């Protein structure tokens, strides 16, 4: 673990998660347009949207300081979390004991920041959106946590790097396969796409949590949402499907990008072919999945 590797992979991780995420969002919008037999926006559309929003006036609907600060917190914590995922190799740039707990905490902060913004914005639609987002987060975060803990029990270490190395060299066993399937089934809820975009339901509660945000703040929250999508796809592809892997870190980055594109394509297909669930249906789905994924911990403790 030399300094050069840490700097290179930190830069690459932040580049992929933060700077390439609008490109993936543009890809999503293009695919959705093609499914609906439209031409669709250009591939770089999301960059234009973000740049435009950065230059708009920042209207303040309230003087609450939480409303002013927490949109920026969401982007920053996404950037932090991106440093804990291995993209350039088997180990992430920040590799220390217990980083899976830090990862779960930081991932939760992203949602919490948006919930705080919505709760501080003094809009009834935002309150509904915030309460729905909180319920969704509370029900879906345990699935990812259980899956990571299953990996930790199997590898015998609380480092993400060790889990990935163990998984890469030992191959899948029953418990890891089970948790991989559970994470894949909860991926749509983790990235907040259509069957589970209940908190931002555009037609129903007018973008809910985002309704009072304007200008740079809205750009930050939108950017955080786009980056969250890439981040969770990376979590799935890099931690739960670490194959194939080469010696060269740049080739690893290209492999990761191809895998993420495939996962985003699948999730876009699910998004454009499905209706939105109600909050009680989504809670039922997530809690059933969480209970089901608990079995993977027992299987891991049994050693299979």
């Amino acid at each position, binding site marked *: 673990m030399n300094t050069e590797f840490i700097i290179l992979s930190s830069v690459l991780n932040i580049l992929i998660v933060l700077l390439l995420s609008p490109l993936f969002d543009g890809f999503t919008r293009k695919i959705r347009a093609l499914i609906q037999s439209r031409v669709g926006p250009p591939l770089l559309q999301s960059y234009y949207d973000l740049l435009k929003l950065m*230059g*708009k006036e920042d*209207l303040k609907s309230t003087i609450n300081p939480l409303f002013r600060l927490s949109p920026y917190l969401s982007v920053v914590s996404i950037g932090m979390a991106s440093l804990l995922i291995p993209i350039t190799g088997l180990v992430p740039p920040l590799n220390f004991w217990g980083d899976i707990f830090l990862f779960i905490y930081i991932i939760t902060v992203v949602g919490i920041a948006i919930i705080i913004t919505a709760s501080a914005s003094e809009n009834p639609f935002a309150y509904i959106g915030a309460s729905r987002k909180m319920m969704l987060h509370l029900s879906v975060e345990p699935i990812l946590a259980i899956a990571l803990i299953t990996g930790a029990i199997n590898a015998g270490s609380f480092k993400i790097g060790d889990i990935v190395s163990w998984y890469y060299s030992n191959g899948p066993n029953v418990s890891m396969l089970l948790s991989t399937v559970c994470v894949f089934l909860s991926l749509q809820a983790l990235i907040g796409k259509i069957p589970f975009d209940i908190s931002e339901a555009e037609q129903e509660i007018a*973008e809910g949590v*985002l*309704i009072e945000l304007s200008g740079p703040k809205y750009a930050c929250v939108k950017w955080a949402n786009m980056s969250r999508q890439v981040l969770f796809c990376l979590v799935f592809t890099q931690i739960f499907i670490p194959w194939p892997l080469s010696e060269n870190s740049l080739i690893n980055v290209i492999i990761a990008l191809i895998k993420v594109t495939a996962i985003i394509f699948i999730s876009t297909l699910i998004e454009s072919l499905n209706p939105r669930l109600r909050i009680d249906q989504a809670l039922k789905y997530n809690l059933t999945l969480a209970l089901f994924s608990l079995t993977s911990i027992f299987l891991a403790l049994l050693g299979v």
Partner: protein
Amino acid sequence: MSLLKKLAQQSLKKSVWIFHVNTGACNGCDIELLDILTPYHDIERFGMKAVSSPRHADALVISGPVTRPTVEFVKSVYEATPEPKIVIALGSCATAGGIWFDSYNVVGGVDKVIPVNLYIPGCPPRPEAIIFGIAQALGISKKKIKPLIAEQIGAE
């Protein structure tokens, strides 16, 4: 800082988000506005989309004559939209009051209440006319009519 502002101004032309305000229209213009979101016309290829909150909008599309009960709402929607913004009056009623120009309950066109940048007349205007009007306002396409010059009004 100025570079970011320049980039923001340039990308404003490529992504205009529309908020639709109905100030008492008969729904004719509203249905024509919904037509431009359909796959046939597909306004998203210009980066435009309809948003559900005026705080996200760049363009306010106002249809209908401004009736007395809605005057305050039109003003507050205008204030709730962040700068830079354009206001588009859609249809004959929004342009000048239409057939309700002297009705007791109608203030008049939208320009009596808030400043208007673009008028799209018609009862209702065709979806092509709406897209053409917005494209003109953004500078994507040029005006097709000649400017009013002396020979047109016969004054040599």
